[in-house]
């Protein structure tokens, strides 16, 4: 272990020397060595309405719902630049809980990513939940996320796994009124993989520089959880979604359709 570390350190030292010699030839527009930050602003809504706790929203099939909890896990955020290069945020820091209760007055939840390589980025991709590679690490590299997920109720206590999304509230149908609604979807160990990734193109280029910290406004349409690529009716059992082998992949696929980039601020 130690030896390996030293080797790495020496390699790193060598890398610095070689980096600086490269810099001599750079022109003034060269972004080499520059880094900047990007803020992803997650904004939950339902169709064309902003999402507000306790408000009743209609869905298809004359069903409706209101929520008291709305949280999901975002991980593996990566940006692709205009030349096709991908910048993957460091794995150990690349997992976040988006909790509507943490929103500002406008209901936006910020995820700020530091030290991104300066570039002209054209798209962002991320996953909802925890992928199998990260799960297979066990505790390794999880740092404080285990505590955070556990404290936020994003972990099952009866099984070792993460809830990728947590929606708690009530629903009504033509025959039922204000019945409990609980959607706690996640992967189930290695037996069922519900992790999905989405790639969103930016409407205009996101310019990351030493002196520029762009913001990306991402809308998440919660209606798509139930009315996404597949319609999931409460009357058919989608009022209680936990680990069901048939229901959970449908919710996972639906969630994958709920994100869009509304606009980008380059400042």
């Amino acid at each position, binding site marked *: *272990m*130690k030896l390996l570390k*030293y080797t*790495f*350190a*020496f390699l*790193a*030292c060598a*890398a*610095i020397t070689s*980096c600086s010699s490269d810099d001599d030839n750079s022109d003034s527009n060269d972004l080499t*060595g*520059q*880094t900047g930050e990007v803020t992803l602003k997650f904004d939950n809504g339902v169709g064309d309405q902003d999402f507000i706790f306790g408000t009743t929203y209609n869905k298809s099939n004359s069903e409706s719902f209101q929520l008291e909890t709305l949280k999901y896990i975002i991980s593996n955020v990566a940006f692709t630049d205009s030349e096709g290069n991908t910048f993957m945020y460091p794995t150990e820091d690349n997992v976040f809980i988006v909790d509507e209760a943490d929103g500002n007055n406008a209901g936006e939840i910020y995820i700020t990513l*530091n*030290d991104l390589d300066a570039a002209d980025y054209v798209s962002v991709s991320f996953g909802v939940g925890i992928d199998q590679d990260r*799960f*297979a*690490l*066990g*505790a*390794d*590299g*999880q*740092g*404080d996320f*285990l*505590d955070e997920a*556990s*404290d936020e109720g994003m*972990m*099952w*206590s*009866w*099984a*070792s*796994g993460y809830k990728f999304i947590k929606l708690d509230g009530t629903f009504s149908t033509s025959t039922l009124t204000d019945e409990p609604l609980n959607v706690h979807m996640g992967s*189930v*160990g*290695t*037996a*069922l993989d519900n992790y999905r990734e989405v790639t969103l193109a930016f409407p205009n280029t996101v310019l990351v520089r*030493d002196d520029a910290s762009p913001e990306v406004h991402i809308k998440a349409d919660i209606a798509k959880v139930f009315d996404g690529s597949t319609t999931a009716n409460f009357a058919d059992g989608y009022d209680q979604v*936990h*680990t*069901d*082998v048939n229901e959970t992949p449908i919710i996972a696929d639906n969630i994958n359709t709920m994100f869009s980039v509304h606009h980008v601020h380059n400042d």
Partner: protein
Amino acid sequence: MKRIPLFLFVCLLVSSCNKDSETEVYVPVPIQVEWPENFPEMAYNLDNNPLTEAGFELGKDLFYEGKLSSNGAIACAFCHEQAFAFTHHGHNLSHGVNGGVGFRNAQPIQNMAYQTSFMWNGSASHLDLQPIIPITSEIEMGETLSNIIQKLSADSEYQEKFDRAFDDGEVSTENMLKALSQFMVMMVSSNSKYDKYVRQEDNVTLSTIELDGLNTFQQKCTSCHATDLFTDQTFRNNGLPVNPLLNDTGRYEILEDPNDLYKFKVPSLRNVAVSGPYMHDGRFATLEVVLDFYDAGAVDNGNVDPLLLREDNTYGITLNDYEKESLIAFLKTLTDNEFLEDERFAEY
């Protein structure tokens, strides 16, 4: 910009390390886990959690540490006692904080590095994450991960132990779970009379009745209790009558798949003679009762394993009296006293 300063920092570290080594610096001592020749391949990935003496010792301290529970009294070892292959001897169901009673019988902790899933219904598929289940269960240890870290961080002995055990030295959940895994990974039971017999060590032989039992075992039991771990690690419904008080659906809880109703993980039989009571709810106190059940007690609860279907359309494994007697004689050869008395795993 972060990258370059980080590298510089590493360079500085290299030079400063040389200076430090003149004073006394703890150097991690790697330790090896056994891979007995009659065992299948290890499932646990040691690359993500290299075993060291300090990591193992910390894991042991945590295993016997009451602070992992909300009332400070329920350590892992409360339900996992070494003398009984780390089970809760004599208790059908596990107990916890504030007099809570669980739903299932505490399973042995042995040969964990070779297991692909944990808990009776396989609800943990990584050893590192398994302890979260009993720790956060309200009826077992009833504690939160962040509370534990707070308690351990306030303890100077633990600060020092975490510092020695891990490169980043932090008292964190990640390191706590890694240390617990290091302790459990090392708990290998592979030196029973049977092991020495199959590995032809120390001129160990089995008696006639033990050999007859082994023979019956191979004919009637190894399709589930396979390999020298004595489990094929699958989930099966063995036809136990459903206890309406618990209505434990087993593996069904995990994927809510009707095909998984009343299925439980095939348990290893190592140290089985000392780890009763038996079955997921500990309903059988002796091995005799277990074998009587397989012979004549299984019922059709709707989803029984087809391997147990007999020609007369009943479920079970037909066993005569001598087969039962010899099977038990054989099962006793799986008791590994070296493991049960191994001081490395003992509290005191």
